[in-house]
């Protein structure tokens, strides 16, 4: 386990355990899982398929019951889901009967109940513009492309002004061109907001490009933190400078070697 002392710990998983009941007895996905995430830190989680990454993330989000242990947000145990932990799902999960703006607005209304209508509108439009959807405010979600939908998903999450941002393979369903575009959008918005973020991904380059720290999970059952890579590339990062950085391939090798086991 890592000891983080210099900055405030925003999120902490303490002895986190998850067991799914099955007909042949409990299936323990995670056991005594420990993790600390500092304020304004961006961490990625990689690991083999089925090791329990989504399970971990949904437990932190409050969408999945915790079998044992605790998730502390800002030193307070979480209680169910809430807008202080915004989630960007792999499938965009927009409400298809609403416009892009309405999809963001429904969350903004919850988080800023005392703001005026105009203020709320400004917040929604600000974030939608940030993700490059300035001319699609009033398009129905169903008429948006997959990439545009995920942009709305990112805008919706940031507009909630959450304490923690949770992303579960947010670009997993996109083609590689769009994926690169959206990584740039994400890092761009994130660098202004500096919201503590945890992202699950299968893409090693994506993990290095976006994160301060990459957590490598051992294969389940009883998954744990297997290894950690600190990505010490200075921010703001540009795609081409990151790729040309001599340490980039070192990090890449580190992660790939771990995954090869």
């Amino acid at each position, binding site marked *: 386990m890592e000891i983080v002392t210099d900055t405030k710990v925003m999120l902490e998983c303490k002895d986190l355990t998850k067991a799914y009941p099955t007909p042949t007895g409990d299936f323990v996905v995670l056991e005594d899982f420990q993790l600390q995430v500092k304020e304004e830190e961006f961490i990625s989680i990689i690991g083999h398929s089925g090791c329990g990454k989504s399970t971990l993330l949904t437990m932190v*989000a*409050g*969408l999945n019951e915790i079998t044992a242990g605790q998730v502390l947000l800002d030193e307070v145990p979480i209680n*169910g*889901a*809430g*807008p202080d*932990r*915004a*989630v960007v*799902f792999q*499938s965009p*999960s927009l*409400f*298809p*009967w609403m416009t892009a703006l309405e999809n963001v607005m*429904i*969350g903004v209304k*919850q988080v800023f109940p005392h703001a005026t209508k105009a203020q709320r509108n400004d917040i929604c439009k600000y974030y939608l513009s940030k993700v490059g959807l300035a001319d699609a405010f009033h398009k*129905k979600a*169903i*008429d948006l492309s997959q990439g545009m939908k995920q942009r709305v998903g990112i805008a919706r999450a940031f507009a*909630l002004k959450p304490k923690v941002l949770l992303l579960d393979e947010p670009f997993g369903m996109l083609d590689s061109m769009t994926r690169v575009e959206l990584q740039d959008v994400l890092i761009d918005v994130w660098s202004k907001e500096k919201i503590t973020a945890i992202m699950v991904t299968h893409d090693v380059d994506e993990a290095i490009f976006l994160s301060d720290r990459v957590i490598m999970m051992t294969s389940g059952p009883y998954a744990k933190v297997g290894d950690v890579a600190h990505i010490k590339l200075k921010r703001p990062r540009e795609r081409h400078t990151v790729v040309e950085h001599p340490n980039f391939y070192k990090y890449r090798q580190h992660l790939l070697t771990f995954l090869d086991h």
Partner: protein
Amino acid sequence: MGRKILNSFHWLGFSFLEPLVRLIRGEEPKKNGLIIFRKVIVPIASVLLFLGVCNYFAHYLYAVERERKIEKTLATQGEEAALAMQECIDSGDLSCKPNSLPSPGDVWNGAVTLIEDHKTISADKEAFREKTAGINAKRKAQGKEPITYTGRPSFVDQIMTSLETVFAGFLLAALLAIPAGIVLGLSETLRTALNWVIQIFKPVSPVVWLLLVSMVVKTILASADMDKSFVISFISVGLCSMWATLVNTAMGVSSVDKDYLNVSKVLRLGVFSNVFKVILPSSIPLIFTGLRITLSVAWMVLIAIELLAQSPGLGSFVWEEFQNGANDSNAKIIVAMFVIGGIGFALDRMMMLVQKAVSYESRA
């Protein structure tokens, strides 16, 4: 412009006209020609063939019936009467016409008679209204009930009555089934506990519903001064037809995409927002599919219910004509059959349009 026409055809469900427009505009003559052959020419040919077969069959039955009638007269009244009967039949005298399946021509004449009849009755009604206008105004001033027309309703009046009844029944079904479906959909406990109600009542025949409803309505409205048969029939129609909407609504509400519910949880939406902004909109397509089935069931059972409840409408029209046994009654029954079919088709098309308009899925 052309695009617009084609789009509106598509919406109205007349997409078979599309190739015709394209052909007129000279687009891909070979392909569109084939489509027209398939979608226009063959169907028209099938209608003609259908009419031909009906005509042949009707004439065959007529001949059989004629033979039988003559033989019967011969057996009971002797040779002379039989000859007279044969002459009478062949002269086309309506008084001795054998009563059999009407031919397409007879049906056409029946339709014309019904329309003429409607014109006469309408004129009669108009005359009555003019005649009683003065008296009714006076009666109204005195606080008395106005005198109303009590003559026989025309075929068109019967159609209107049936439509009123079916809409009242449909409305009742929707008002009962949608809220009940939402509640059942939201609560798994209720859904499991009350499943037997749906399973038992869904297959109950319209006739039984009618009897049940009339038992209740008779008692409740015993002294009320209103049209009991109308109330009984529309309630029965509603109760018969509501099940599809109930089941579909419950299913739609209980099977909302898990991702939507997760978003709703993350946003901590209140119960009200959760139901009206997430759960209901996402179940709208299923609810409207249910409503469409409900309307077509309502129309189908309506005829049987009217027939039994003696409430005015197409059902009792058919029954009265059958009882009446006049020489053009059979033709009128067949006219009614086509009117019933046509209206059912039109109602279904209408619901399909509404369904398309409210569905967020099928837009492309």
